[in-house]
C-alpha cells in the first residue's frame, strides 16, 4: 500500500507545500514546531481540507487532483484517523462507537458488534463495552478511538498527536499499546507528534515539517544524528552550525571559524554533541584547537546532567555534571572557556 502526496493548501498564514511518498514498510512520524502545518497535512490526506494544488494518490487511485477536477471525499478514501481529541460519538456506547465504521459501510449489526467487541478486548477494555464516552477516562477514550479507526481495516492510518490530550499517567501505557498496534498494522502509518520521545518510540522514519515545508526526512537514526535545521537540532539536543568548509576548517555563516577532522569542501553542516563541549575556568592549554571565551548564559537540567548555554563568538550548549556546575560557578553566569575537539565535530554537506 502506498500514498503519494503532493499537497498544496493555503490556510490563513500557513502555506502547506509538500511532496511525500509513504509506503507500508515503515511507521513514519511527522514532527515539527507548532503551526508548521502537521495537522493540516493530515487533514488534507484525509480529505477534510480540500487541496488547492497538487495530487494525492492512494494505492494507484488518484484520490484528489484539483487541476483535473477529481476529489473523492473523506468517506471514500478508506482511511483510519485518530484525532488529538478522541472525537467519539457522545450518544453511542464504546461498542457502538467502534462498530460505527463497519455499520456505516454496510456490515450487518451483529457481525459489526462482534468485531467491535474483539477490538475493545484487544485494547484492554473488555469492561467498557456499554459505557458512554463521558464515562471513560482520557486514556480509555483514546483507546476506543484507536479501535474505532482500526476496526474498518483502513489502507492508511493517520494519527494526529494521539497522546497529546492524554494525562501523563496514562500516556506511557497508551504509547506502549500504540507502538504494538502500529507494528502489527499492515498499511501506511503516519503519526503526528511534537514529542521527540514519542517519535523515537513509535516511528522508524521521520519527516520534519517546518513552516509548511518538509525540511528533512529519513530514517530516525540519520535525522537525529545529522539534523538539517535548527529546530531539529534543538529537538534532538545537538548544536548545529553551518558554514563553508575548506582545508579542514569551516568558516561559519554566523562568523568565526572551527577546525574539523574532515577534508570536505563546500557548504557544510557541523553537529556537536553537548557532552563534547568542555568548559573551563581558564583558557585551556594543549590539544583542542577550537577554544572560545564566553559567558554562561543559561543553565538547566536534563535528567541528572546540567546543560549550559555559552554565549560567545559561537553560541553552544554544553552538557556537564552537576559537580562541574559548582566547580566552575556556572550558576552565576560568569565568564567561561569552551573547547571542542576537532574529532568531535560531525560534518555533512548542506
Amino acid at each position, binding site marked *: 500500500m502506498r500514498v503519494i502526496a503532493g499537497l498544496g493548501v493555503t490556510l490563513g498564514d500557513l502555506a502547506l507545500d509538500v511532496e511525500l511518498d509513504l509506503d507500508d514498510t515503515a511507521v513514519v512520524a511527522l514532527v515539527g514546531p507548532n503551526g508548521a502545518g502537521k495537522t493540516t497535512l493530515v487533514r488534507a490526506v484525509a480529505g477534510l481540507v480540500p487541496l488547492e494544488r497538487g495530487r494525492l494518490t492512494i494505492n494507484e487511485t488518484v484520490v484528489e487532483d484539483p487541476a483535473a477536477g477529481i476529489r473523492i471525499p473523506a*468517506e471514500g478514501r478508506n482511511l483510519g484517523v485518530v*484525532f488529538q481529541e478522541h472525537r467519539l*460519538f*457522545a450518544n453511542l456506547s464504546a461498542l457502538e462507537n467502534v462498530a*460505527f*465504521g463497519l455499520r456505516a459501510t454496510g456490515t450487518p449489526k451483529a457481525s459489526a458488534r462482534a468485531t467491535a467487541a474483539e477490538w475493545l478486548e484487544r485494547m484492554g477494555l473488555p469492561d467498557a463495552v456499554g459505557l458512554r464516552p463521558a464515562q471513560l477516562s482520557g486514556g480509555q477514550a483514546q483507546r476506543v478511538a484507536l479501535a474505532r*479507526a482500526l476496526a*474498518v481495516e483502513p489502507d492508511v492510518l493517520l494519527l494526529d498527536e494521539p497522546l497529546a490530550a492524554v494525562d501523563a499517567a496514562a500516556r506511557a501505557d497508551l504509547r506502549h499499546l500504540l507502538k504494538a498496534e502500529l507494528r502489527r498494522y499492515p498499511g501506511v502509518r503516519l503519526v503526528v507528534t511534537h514529542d521527540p520521545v514519542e517519535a523515537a518510540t513509535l516511528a522508524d522514519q521521520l519527516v520534519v515539517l517546518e513552516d509548511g515545508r518538509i525540511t528533512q526526512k529519513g530514517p530516525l537514526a540519520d535525522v537525529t544524528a545529522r539534523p538539517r535545521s535548527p529546530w531539529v537540532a534543538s529537538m534532538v539536543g545537538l548544536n548545529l552550525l553551518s558554514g563553508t568548509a575548506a582545508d579542514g576548517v569551516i568558516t561559519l555563516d554566523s562568523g568565526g571559524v572551527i577546525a574539523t577532522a574532515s577534508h570536505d569542501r563546500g557548504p557544510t553542516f557541523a553537529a556537536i554533541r553537548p557532552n563534547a563541549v568542555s568548559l573551563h575556568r581558564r583558557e585551556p592549554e594543549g590539544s583542542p584547537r577550537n577554544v572560545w571565551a564566553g559567558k554562561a548564559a543559561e543553565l538547566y537540567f536534563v535528567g541528572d546532567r546540567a546543560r549550559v548555554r555559552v554565549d560567545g563568538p559561537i553560541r553552544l550548549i554544553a552538557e556537564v555534571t552537576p559537580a562541574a556546575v559548582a566547580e566552575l560557578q556556572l550558576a552565576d553566569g560568569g565568564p567561561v572557556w569552551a573547547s571542542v575537539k576537532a574529532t568531535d565535530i560531525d560534518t555533512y554537506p548542506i
Partner: protein
Amino acid sequence: MLPLIGLLQRAPWSSLVRQLRADEAFTALRLSIVTSLGALGLSAVFGIPLAWMLARRRFPGRALVRAMVTLPMVLPPVVGGIALLYAFGRNGFAGRVLYDLTGWRLVFTTGGVILAETFVAMPFLIVTAEAAFRSMDRRTEEAAATLGASAAYRFRRVTLPAVAPALAAGAALTWARALGEFGATITFAGNLPGVTQTTPLLAYLDIESGHETTALALSLVLLMVSLLVLVGLRDRWLGSP
C-alpha cells in the same frame, strides 16, 4: 400574574370536564390537536432542511432568506392571514395554480388552518434548529466521514442525535404556538365549526356571545398546555435530564 389569577379564580372547576366534553368544545379541541400536529409535521418537513441549509451552506441571498423566514415571528398574525389570502385564496396566484392542478382549495378548509398555523409557528422551529446546527461540535461529523459514513448516514447517526434536544425544544415551542394560533387562522380559514373552528376561535366566540364557562374551560386547557411546554423546556435549559 394578575390575568392568570383572574382566569384561575373564575374557572368552572366543578363542570370543567362536562364543559369540555360538550359537542362544540370537543370538536374544537380535536380539530386544534389535529391541525397543530399537522402544522408541526409540515414545519419539521420543510423547516429542518431549511434550517440546515441556513446553518451549513453558503448560497446567494442567504441573509434575505433568513430574514424572510423569521418575519412571521414579528408580523401581526392578521397581516399574515391577509397575505395568505392573497397568495392561496381562491383568486390568489398560488391558490389558483393549486386548484387547477389538484382541485384542492385551502381557504375555509382544515388544510387552510394547518397552512396558517404553519406560517406563524414554523419560524420557531427554524430559528432553534438553525442555532443547533450552527453551534454543534462538527468534529464528530468529520470523524464519521473518515470512518466511511456517507453524508446521509452522518446526518442520521451523528448530526441528528447531537441536535435532537434542541429540535425537541423547538418542536415544543412550534406546537404550542400553532395550538394557540388565532389571527392568521380566522383571517385565512374562517370560523367554521368542525372544519376551521379551532379552540382559540371557539373560546373567542364563546366569550363574545356570553358562553363564559365554555370560554374559561377552553382557556384553561390552552393555559395548561403552555405551562407544561414551559416547564418541560425549563428543565432542559437548566440541564437536568
